[in-house]
Every structure is written in C-alpha cells, then in structure tokens.
C-alpha cells in the first residue's frame, strides 16, 4: 500500500513537470485561461456568496448564544465573527466547498476527454495535452480564488451583521465596533496565502485524477469522487502546516 502511495506521488510530480513545460503557443493559452476564469471562477461566485452569507449568520448567532455572560462585551460577537471568517471560513471551508464544485468538474471533464480519446487526439497533433488542458485551469484558479476569498469575507461579515441585528442579539453599532476592534491586517494576507495553496491543490490533484482515468464512464465517476476526497484531505493537511508556519 505504501509503495502504491509513493508511486502515485511520483506520478503526480511527473505529471506536474509535464503541465509546467513550455506552452506551444502562448496566445492560445491566454484564451484558454480567460475561458477558465469564467467556467471555474465566475460560476463559483454564487455558491461561495450564499454559503458565506449563511455561515457568517450562524457564526454570529452561535457566538452570541455562547457568550451571554454579562462580563463579555457585546462587540466580541462581531470580533468573533470577523476572525472566524477571515482565518478559517473564507479560505479553508470555502476551499473544501470548491474542491467539491471545481474539483469534480475538472476531474470529470478531463476524465471524459481521456476516455473519448480527445486527449489522444491532442497528443497525435503533437500538443502537450497536460499543459494545454491543465495549465490554464491552474493559472485561472490561482488568480481567481483570492477574489472568491475576498467575496467570502465581505459577504460572510455582512451575513453576520444582518443575522445579529435582525435577531436582536447585538446592535449594529456594537457589531461594527467589534469587526474593527484589534484588527490585524496580516490575517487577510494569511488567508490569501492559504487560498493560493488550496487553489493549486484542488486543480492539480483533480486534473491528475482525471488525466489518468482508464476505462469508461464508471471510472470517470470514481476519478471525480477521488478528486474531491484527496483534495479535501490534502487541504486539511496543508491547513495545519500553513497555520503553524504563518501564525506561529
């Protein structure tokens, strides 16, 4: 089992070498990257916004119900909401959601291209199929996922503010004071760094699973599931490592 795992890791790095080789015609890659911005980035805004809004709302209400003691100032609810969203939700939880949406999309798209011989058709033409198909996806997610993270932060805090004020657990003034109190701008940088790592993990692992599919539609489905599971596990592992490196 260990040998199989190490073989897979080796294949993964050889695959990355193939992906990052010199593009055949950079202008074609530019067009592909623009397409991927839309299919992987813009189409993810909706799901990220909806989930962020409700997560922000729940974090605010949970914090409020668990800090009802009068010795805790009310503005701590806003502060808790802000830090939870910036430090963990906007990067890690959003990455796990994107692993499900974007990861399965990439694995199934590339896997289908493999089993229908479209990748063979690219190879026959002398095109480095790994680079042509995957590099634009990696570039698009590396550039666009930080924007999704910023959206998650803004919408999450907005959701927290609305839930807090509408339910009456905190006043608007207290919440706004809380989200400004003891603000550390580096937390945003930390969140962005994590997002970039997670974007690479999601795209490369999912593409790897799809690229080496062997068989038919059943195997494409399996590859898609593996893409989500492996990406999620590696994201959680790297979350621990990056947190220790960046915040210690």
């Amino acid at each position, binding site marked *: 089992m260990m040998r199989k795992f190490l073989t897979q890791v080796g294949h993964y790095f050889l695959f990355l070498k193939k992906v990052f080789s010199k593009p055949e015609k950079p202008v074609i890659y530019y067009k592909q990257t623009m397409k991927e911005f839309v299919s992987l980035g813009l189409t993810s805004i909706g799901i990220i916004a909806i989930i962020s809004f409700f997560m922000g709302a729940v974090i605010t209400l949970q914090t409020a119900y668990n800090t009802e003691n009068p010795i805790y100032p009310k503005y701590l609810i806003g502060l808790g909401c802000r830090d939870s969203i910036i430090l963990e939700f906007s990067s890690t939880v959003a990455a796990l959601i994107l692993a499900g949406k974007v990861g399965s999309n990439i694995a199934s798209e590339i896997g*289908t291209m493999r089993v229908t*011989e*479209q990748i*063979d*058709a690219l190879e*026959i*033409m*002398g*095109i480095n199929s790994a680079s042509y198909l995957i590099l634009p996806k990696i570039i698009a997610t590396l550039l666009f996922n930080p924007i999704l993270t910023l959206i998650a932060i803004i919408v999450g805090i907005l959701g927290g503010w609305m839930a807090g004020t509408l339910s009456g657990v905190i006043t608007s003034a207290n919440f706004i004071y809380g989200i400004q109190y003891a603000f550390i701008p580096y937390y945003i940088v930390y969140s962005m760094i994590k997002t970039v790592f997670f974007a690479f993990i999601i795209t490369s692992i999912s593409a790897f699973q799809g690229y080496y599919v062997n068989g038919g539609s059943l195997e494409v489905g399996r590859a898609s599931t593996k893409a989500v599971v492996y990406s999620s596990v590696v994201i959680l592992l790297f979350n621990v490592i990056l947190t220790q490196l960046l915040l210690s």
Partner: protein
Amino acid sequence: MIRVINLNKSFNGNSILNNISVTFETGKTNLIIGRSGSGKTVLLKSIVGLHDIDSGEIWYEDVLFNKLDFKDKKVIRSEMGMLFQGSALFDSLTVEQNVRFPLDMFTDKNSEEKDERVNFCLNRVNIINANNLFPAELSGGMKKRVAIARAISLNPKYLFCDEPNSGLDPLTAILIDALIKELTEEYSMTTIVNTHDMNSVMEIGEKIICISDGIKCWEGNKNEILNSDCETLNDFVFANSLAKKLRLTNK
C-alpha cells in the same frame, strides 16, 4: 512510407503484439484487419506513438520514430492526421472550431486564410451548413466526416483511421471508405485503416495485413484475400453463413 520492424508490445506482462513486421506504402490505403481484441488498435496506437513499444523499430521514411524524444516527434506528428473510433471531436468546440484547431496551434495563417482552409476541408468531406453545430448535435457519419476534415486540415502525409465505419450504416460506411480512398490518392498520403468490416476490405484494401492474437498471420491485397490458404484469415473473411455458402459453391 511507414516501416514496422519486429514490433513487440505488452501490457503488465501480457503480450499483445508479437514480432510484427510490415511496410505501409505511400499513396495506398493499407488495411489492418482482424477480430476484435486481436491487437489492431494497439498496433495502430504504437505506430503513431500513443503507446511506447517494448522492442522493435518504427520508421517514417528514413526517420526512426520510436527513438525520437517528444520534441522531435512533434515534427513527424505535425504530418499525421488521425480518425479515432469515436471521432474524438472536442466537445466544447463547434465543427468549425474543431477543424480550425490544428491551424490555430501550428500555423501562422491569418484568420481569413484559416477560414478558407476550414471551409475547403468541410466542403471536401461534404459537410455543409454545419459550421456552428457542436459535436453532440451531429450524427455518427457527420462526426466521422468532421474528424476527417480536422485530420486533413494540415495536409498530412500520414492518415490513420481506427475503425472508421464502426457504428455506421452500410451506405454511410461506404461513403466514408470512398472518402478515405479518394483523399489518400488526392494527397498521396500513407493511409493505415484498422477495420473488421469486410465491405471496407473489398472496397479499399490495396494492401492488407491480418492480425490474429497479436501475430501477423497474412499479408496481401483485396484480390488475393478470397483465395488465401490462411485458415485464420478464412475464418474471419468467411465468418457469416452467406459467405460460407458462396465459398462452398465456388469450390
């Protein structure tokens, strides 16, 4: 001309092709025939370099193709066109974009020149008013014809067809065969066609090799195939009851 010398190929220790040697001639439609699972597709994919071979030599004219690295193979590959069994058109591109794709990747032609070439190739395979359709909107025969148009868009020297008639009705199959033969003669290409369709064999088989269990068991042309002594070939050629009766009657 493509020469294959003592080609061996195995997967996970299972031998698929054994000591295959054959010469495919320029300007002719060369057929590889054999039963399903006999190793035809593996042979074709080995010749084009999609499978690394265990041993042997594959020569394109005077270039030893299987020893070239990826960069050098690209030069030969730019002279190849291939029609896959399932057409392998790019799902996300329209008919026009599919045919235009090799031109975008490998030529410095301007947009008008590319449009002209795309329309010429599509007209050549009788695809009219379908430029903006996606592959999912095409019939099986149309997909094959668009795939042929894409394959010839760069004027290839070598054309490879993996079961071009699979899934087609007999009339459409004959049209595709005729098109492949015409294009081969027109552009003086070296064409290799994998097939187990006897109609194709009799229509376009200028040079034929028969593969059985990974071994080349017969080589000849369509005029010789009906009088062969090779039992494996005869089992394949006279597989249906009508053909068997005709053979007995002739004897």
